């Protein structure tokens, strides 16, 4: 139930506060009642039919950077 995949927002209906999202290529209606400022092309997490937090691309890139650095300090990959 806590599991969720990131899904990108394809379209938003502001009247109903709903969005069409595409997790892994599937189209799905989700509610936007729990998030603010979502725009088309944003990525959101959708555990049980409700969009939660927007994903931050900048933070994701920042997270990936230390992975690469860990590799550098550890020498050659095994």
């Amino acid at each position, binding site marked *: 139930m806590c599991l969720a995949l990131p899904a990108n927002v394809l379209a938003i209906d502001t009247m109903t506060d709903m969005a069409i999202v595409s997790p892994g290529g599937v189209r799905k209606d989700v*509610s936007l009642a729990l998030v603010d400022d979502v725009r088309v092309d944003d990525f959101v997490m959708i555990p049980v039919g409700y969009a939660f*937090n927007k994903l931050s691309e900048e933070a*994701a890139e920042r997270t990936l950077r230390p992975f690469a650095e860990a590799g550098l300090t550890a020498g050659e990959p095994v």
Partner: protein
Amino acid sequence: MKYIEEFRQHDLAHQLSAAISKAVKPDRSYHLMEFCGGHTHAIFRYGVQDLMPPNVKFVHGPGCPVCVLPIGRIDNAIALVERHDVILCTYGDVLRVPASGRRSLLKVKAAGADIRMVYSVRDALRIAQENPGRQVVFFAIGFETTTPPTAVAIRQAQAEGLGNFSVFCNHVLTPAAIQNILESPEVRDMGSVSIDGFFGPSHVSSIIGSRPYEFFAEEFQKPVVIAGFEPLDVMQSALMLIRQLNEGRYEVENEYTRVVTREGNTKAQSLVAEVFELRRVFEWRGLGLVPYSALRLKEAYAALDAEKRFDTPAIAASDVKGCECPSILRGVKRPVDCKLFGTVCTPENPMGSCMVSSEGACAAYWSYGRFRRPETASRETAA
């Protein structure tokens, strides 16, 4: 950036593995509890344990909502459909959880009861709108992730005057459960479970933020790293925990910054606070009675509370004989220590709740762990 493949890269996993092997001190062990079943599954599905040095061990926690639900609550739900002829709606995992007398909601459904598996509480609302002549009960379950959607639905039902909809609330709270584990005799006095640090849940934390963990990181002097659900997230978080332990720090760090902030989702938090209040005590499978660990509907929403609309007496029910779910949920035993594991208890025919869910530890061991190379497993036992 698709936020999935990037965090499953093979080369980076091996580089992180090498970095972890270099970081660990050979003269100590590192017991890291992943509270959340989502992490347990990531660890098994991607073979993360085998990428760790032998002195880094994962201890599986109780963060699987159907696993910690006591059997009595499923018995209550069965009574709702059988005695009150309601349409009962719930998430898929709940249907297969064994109840008393070898029954389950799925078996009761097969016998003719109107039980519907829903993907979202919105589906339950729609079913109530479409069936004005029937009572529709949503069997609400889950940690802080699934609570805000239930709150939205309760407010919507009240706003629409949907008189035939109610909620059987079983929402539970993560920080209370972690504190209960840290205060348990096994961890505190007997030392039979060692826990050096915690992986903080991914999506629970997206709602509650990283701040609620600060209290027990400080109080119990255990580091916490909020970790994403992808394998590289788990490995990076393990490295962060190992570094904290090596340096004698016990702080809350956040690896999952692409989703989790310190404050969390304040919109969701205020909705939950408006609709729900703390129960003084709630029973958890494995943990027993845990104070202030669950939610119920506030008085203002009492008309939508299934426990007030129907009679749902507290039912004391015991687990199947031999089932080790309670010990597994506390990290005291591993699934392979259970006599029923893989013999009479399998995902197709679960005896205990931990085998049912895609978040349960036994299901993770069964689905992925049984394919581990024997030499790896024996190396781990010997260590």
